[in-house]
C-alpha cells in the first residue's frame, strides 16, 4: 500500500500550511483515529484558484489531502464536486470505476484496506464542505 507516489506526498506534502488567505475553510475529523484536517479553498469566478490544507493524520490521510489539493486546483467548483462524488463511489464499491483523473490512481491501493477508507476520504469530505461553504 505504501507506494512511491503516496510516500512522496506524505514526505513532501503539496499545498500544506497556512489557510489565512482562503475564502472558505472547513474541518474534517475522525475521532476514532484522531485525524484532523482543515481544507481551504480560494476561488475566482467559479474556478478553484487555490486548494490548501493543514492538520494531522496518518500517512494515507495526509497523502490523500496533498494529492487532492494538486488535482483539484484549477478545476471549476462543479467539476471538483463531481470528483469528490467519484472518489466516494470509488471507495464505496469494489467494482466501481476509478475517477477520470489518473493522478488519483495511487490512492487505489488503499481500496484493499476498508479500514483505511475514512483516512483517504476525510480531506475530500472537508473539501466538499468547503465547496458548500462558498
Amino acid at each position: 500500500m505504501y507506494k512511491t507516489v503516496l510516500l512522496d506526498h506524505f514526505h513532501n506534502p503539496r499545498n500544506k500550511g497556512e489557510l489565512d488567505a482562503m475564502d472558505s475553510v472547513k474541518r474534517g475529523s475522525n475521532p476514532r483515529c484522531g485525524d484532523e484536517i482543515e481544507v481551504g479553498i480560494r476561488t475566482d469566478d467559479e474556478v478553484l484558484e487555490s486548494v490548501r490544507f493543514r492538520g494531522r493524520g496518518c500517512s494515507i490521510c495526509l497523502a490523500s489531502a496533498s494529492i487532492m489539493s494538486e488535482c483539484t486546483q484549477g478545476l471549476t467548483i462543479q467539476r471538483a464536486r463531481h470528483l469528490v462524488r467519484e472518489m466516494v463511489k470509488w471507495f464505496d464499491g469494489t467494482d466501481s470505476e476509478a475517477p477520470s483523473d489518473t493522478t488519483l490512481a495511487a490512492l487505489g491501493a488503499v481500496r484493499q484496506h476498508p479500514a483505511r477508507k475514512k483516512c483517504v476520504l476525510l480531506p475530500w469530505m472537508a473539501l466538499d464542505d468547503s465547496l458548500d461553504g462558498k
Partner: protein
Amino acid sequence: MTHEALNPIPAEKPDFDAIRKDFPIFTSGAEPLHYLDSAATSQKPHCVIDAIADCYRSQYGPVHRGLYPLAEAASEAYEKARRTLADFINAPSPEEIIFTRSATEAINLVACGWAGQRLVAGDEMWVSQMEHHSNYLPWQRVCRDRGASLRVIPLDSSGQLNLDGATGLFGKNTRLIAITHLSNVLGIINPVEKLIELAAQKSIPVLIDAAQSAGHIPVDVQALNCDFLVASAHKMCGPGGIGFLFAKMESRQQTEPLLLGGGMVDQVQSGTSLWTDIPARFEAGSPNLAGALGFAVAANYIQQIGRGRIMKREHELADTAFEVLSGIDGLSIYGPDSSQHRSGILSFNIDGIHSHDVAQIAGEQGVAIRAGHHCCQPLMQHLNTSSTARASFSFYNNEEDIAALASAIHETIKILGP
C-alpha cells in the same frame, strides 16, 4: 483458598514451546504469524476448539428446557461449566456466576439492574480515567438518568491511579466504585486489593473489570472481597460470545434482570410476574451451551498451566520487549518506566508516525498489533494523544515475536520516518 494454592508456580521450568503448539493458528498459515494482539482477543488451543466442536457434534441440546436424556445431559454440562468457572475465580458457590454474552453485558447488567434501581440525585459513582469505554459509558448513562454524579479517579504522570487525588472517593455519597484490574492500554495492574479494603471500611461496593486479568494473573474473588467482577471468555483462550458476572449474594438479590424472556421467570400473569431463582433469573433466552463448555475448558487449560506461571512468562516477554523497544530512537512507551506494575501489554508511539501506519506496516510483516484509542478515549486525553500502537503478549508468544515486532518497527521508520 489463597492465591498460591489456586495458582502454584511449579518448580520446574514450563515448556512454553510445547504450549505454543497447542494453538493451531500458529501452524495453519504459510507465513509465520506473530500475534501480539491478545489483549483484543486471544487465540484458541486445540482443547477449546475440540470442546466446541464436540458439543455440537454429540452433546448439543436445549439447556433447562427438556426432559429427555440429551437435554438433561446438556443442562448438567452447562451447570458443570458454571461450577468450573466458579472454582476458577474461587467463588464460594456456582450460583454466584451469571453467564452473560460478554464482560460488557455483565457491566451493563450491574449498571441497569443494580445501580439503575438505587442511585438517587446526589449519589456518586466512581470509575478511573484508564477505564475501557465498557466500564465507563454504562455508568455515565445511569448517572445521567438518575441525577447522580460520575466521578473519575485521576492518574499520575506514569498512568497509575492517583487515589490521593480522588477527593471523596470513600466519602458518604459514593455508592459504587467500578475499576479495571488491569489496564488494556498501559498494562498496569491496579492495586485493587488495597482499594477494596479501603472501600469496605465504608461499606462501598466495588466492581472489578477483570476482562484483561482473568486469564493472565491470579484472580480470587474471596481474597479480593469484591462485590462484582466481570470477565470474558474470548480474552482467555475461550470462545467468543460468552462472559460472566460474579456477584455476591446480597448484591445479586438487589439486582433486577437486564433481559426478560424465557427461562428467567417462574410465573407469568397478566398483572405481574415472578422471577425465577438466581442465576437463571439473569440468563433469559436459550443459554449458550457450546460457549459455556468452551469457556470452562479454557479455564481448566489456563488453570493447568497456572496463572502464576502465565503471569511470570508474560511479564518476562513484556520486559524483554520493553528493553528492545526502549532502544529505538523516536519511540516512546506509555506507562510506568519500571516493569514492576506491568503485565504483558505495551503501548507506544513513534515520533511523526501515526499508530495506524505502524500497525498496517507491521501487519504486512506478519506482526499483528493493535492501533487506535483502544476504546479508552479518557485515557488518551490523559496521555495527550489520539491513539497508540499496542503490543500485547500472551504465554504462547516467544522471543521471535519480539524480534519480529522490532523489525517491523524499524521497517516502519525506514518507510515513513524523517
